[in-house]
């Protein structure tokens, strides 16, 4: 069975939407981070698919590698924030983090 580009894009879109829903609904900070990872990976999947099926070539793959590295860095920073937030508030409920509210 041969899958075309659309199949990959479809999976990427599902991942992206899952990530969005996860970010939008989770109150747990770690959950939100996981949503972010899903969104990023959805995007990565698209890049790789475009690399395979269009003339974008290796550029797209390098892009996805960058995204992975950035995601790792982002995860490290975000986890550190989450730890600190927990230290201060004994919770990681993002709705409690409203100090910067206008």
């Amino acid at each position, binding site marked *: 069975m041969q899958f075309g580009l659309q199949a990959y894009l479809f999976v990427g879109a599902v991942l992206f939407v899952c990530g*969005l829903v996860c970010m939008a*609904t989770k109150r747990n900070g770690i959950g*939100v981070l996981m*949503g972010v990872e899903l969104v990023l990976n959805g995007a990565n999947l698209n890049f790789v698919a475009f690399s395979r099926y269009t003339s974008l070539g290796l550029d797209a793959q390098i892009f996805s590698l960058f995204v992975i590295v950035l995601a790792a860095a982002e995860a490290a920073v975000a986890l550190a924030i989450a730890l600190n937030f927990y230290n201060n508030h004994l919770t990681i409920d993002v709705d409690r983090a409203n*100090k*910067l509210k*206008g």
Partner: protein
Amino acid sequence: MTGETLRNLLMTAWLLPLLGFAIEIFGGFWGSRKSRAAAWLAVACIGTGFICSATALVVWGNATHWAVLSHGDDHADAHAPAAHEGKQDSAPAQPQGAATDTARYLTASLAASSTEEAAAARPQTVFSGTIYRLASFGSLQLSIDYYIDSLTLVMFTMVTFIATCIHLFAIGYMSEELTEEYVDHHAHLRNGHHVHRPGRFYRFFAFLSLFCFSMLGLVIAGNIFQIFIFWELVGICSFLLIGFYTERKSASNAANKAFIMNRVGDFGFLIGLMVVWTYFGTFQFGETVDANGQVVQAGLFQMLPRDADGNVNRNPETGEVMIGSASSPNPGGNRGTIPYFLLVTAGLGVFAGCIGKSAQFPLQTWLPDAMEGPTPVSALVHSATMVAAGVYLVGRFYPLFVHEVLLTIAYVGCITLFVAATIAIVATDIKKVLAYSTISQLGYMMLGLGVFGWGAGLFHLVTHAFFKSLMFLCSGSVIYGCHHEQEMPKMGGLWRKMPITALTMLVGVIAIAGLAVPGLVGLSSAFAFSGFHSKDAVVATALAFVKANPAHYLLFIVPLITAGITAFYMFRLWFYTFAGTPRDAHVYEHCHETPLIMTGPLLVLSLLAAYCAWGGESGVLYRLITGDQPAWVHHGIAGSPESLTLPGHAAVAAVHHEAGLLALIAAFSGTFVAWLLYGSGRVNVEDIRRQLSGVHSFLANKWHFDDLYDAIFMRPMHVVGRFCAWFDKTIFDGILHASARITLVVSRWDRTFDEVVVDGLVNLVGNTTWSVGNAMKHLQTGRLRQYVMFIVAGVVALFAILLSTFPG
């Protein structure tokens, strides 16, 4: 070098008082007001100055082998002031005929070799040069020069000596100022109290020192511009000293009056200076020589060459006068001509300055008012310094005066001496009498100079300085002894209380009146005090002048009559004050003889007032003064029908006996009348005054000169001033106020515009930003998930827009 020695000595004498002033003026800061240190410093300065001046006179005399004295001189006496040195006996005889015939007025300069022929006939007597060059503008050199001849030296010695006496006297007279709180009984505050102020002893002596410095600077000055500077300095000093009791309205008014009246004369002086500068191109009296003794610039005194008769060289066609040095043909390239009327203008201009300074008619009214100053000041101002400056300048500037100017000088002097003498008859203030007598005597000096008696006028200047300073100090002694009572009607009989003052005053009175005991050989050997000799010289010159020019007979009649009046009012003063019975018991009781520091100078001055002119016109003093007189003065100037004949010495000598006898008769009759009216007590003076009340009030009002000037100058000035004030208040102030009001209206409107439009715009922007921000802040909920939803919605919206805009 004699010139340098003389210069250094006279400069020391000149500058020491300035040093004294610089120190004394800080007396109030550096010392106690009760200290006499300032006074002694001033005395030391001026006393050293006197020693230097006298030494300079000796040096000068030795360098010239006393040629001026050895002129058939057998009357030289050890009492004469120049005889401090006792040198005249050793004076070697000089070939005098040759010496007097040489052009004496030609300035032999510092580099003595410049005028060989003059030097051969007679040693150099005139020393001139530059001390310091201030500035040079093109060919105009402004410098501090010196010009030393016998007149300079005599003036220096006289001024420093009299000033020393006056300084000493002032130590006693001003001792009331030695206090922290001086009560001025003549100055009242608005509430009727007397003025209380700190004593100003030190300040008085500082001003005296400055005064001496200015006067000496004037005498040593070697150019006319320098004279002008010191002329003004003398004016300033007299202003400061006349207004010394500045809290008194009368004193400050008198100081202003003296200063302003002098400015009137100085205006003429400036015009004269301009003419001199424009046509002669130099201010210097003496020649300027370079290092080789070559004359590079002729002096003013060489620029107006006279022919053998003493007339100036006039171009026969145009009437213009040749300018140029006779001794050095055209050294400065400024040989030219000057229109005759401008030469007269220059002379009259300079003389106008002298009129102001020497209180001649018509500017004489400041001098009596100047009596508001302390009495030592009056003595200094009215004998040796301020008023002498005018006469001195006329004498100094003589080479540039032509006939018309001399005649003006003579008539001005003639009017002055008569007017002032008549006012002195009725004055009752002891100082006022002396003030008017000063004006009158200054008139004599001017008259003497004007009728070609160069020596006579200056001779009278020196003798007058001695006896007038003596009399002023005597009056100061009386005023001090009588506790500042100046009105003679309240005195009388004071000789019992103050014998020394009375006696010395009598010496002065006899001297000024010109009384004499005729000698066996004739009048020339008469036993007489100084005033007789000098006045005799003036009157004799006037007689010689009138004999040569009968049209001007008034120039002899008036001074002759005035000689009688002089004797009258001076003896009136003496009888009124010292003789008779006391008229005011209170004044008489509290009156006392003054201390030695005040009577000492009186005694010394009385000796000199009596004997300084010993020998008359063959005496030492006259010889010294006339040592460097302009040559043509000696010969006289023979006149043509249309011009004046000016008498020479021979003409004067011919009428000397006659004039002397007439003057003596006038003096004795004046004395006799004075004794009759005031001394004998046989005539009731009040009756006479009532009989002649019209004349008396005319004289007592000073010939209404003050009223006249009030009407001519003051009233119109007040009218003009009032008009100016009105103009200012209505027109100028109106314009100003209107513009101010317009500005106010405009600025009010401007303020409204600012507040409404500009501020409104700015506020609107601010308010809008504020409300927008307020509205937008609700978006910032702080809920993370909501933000994510916004992002999603935004992305979806973006995609929707993108896809709808670019389908496919």
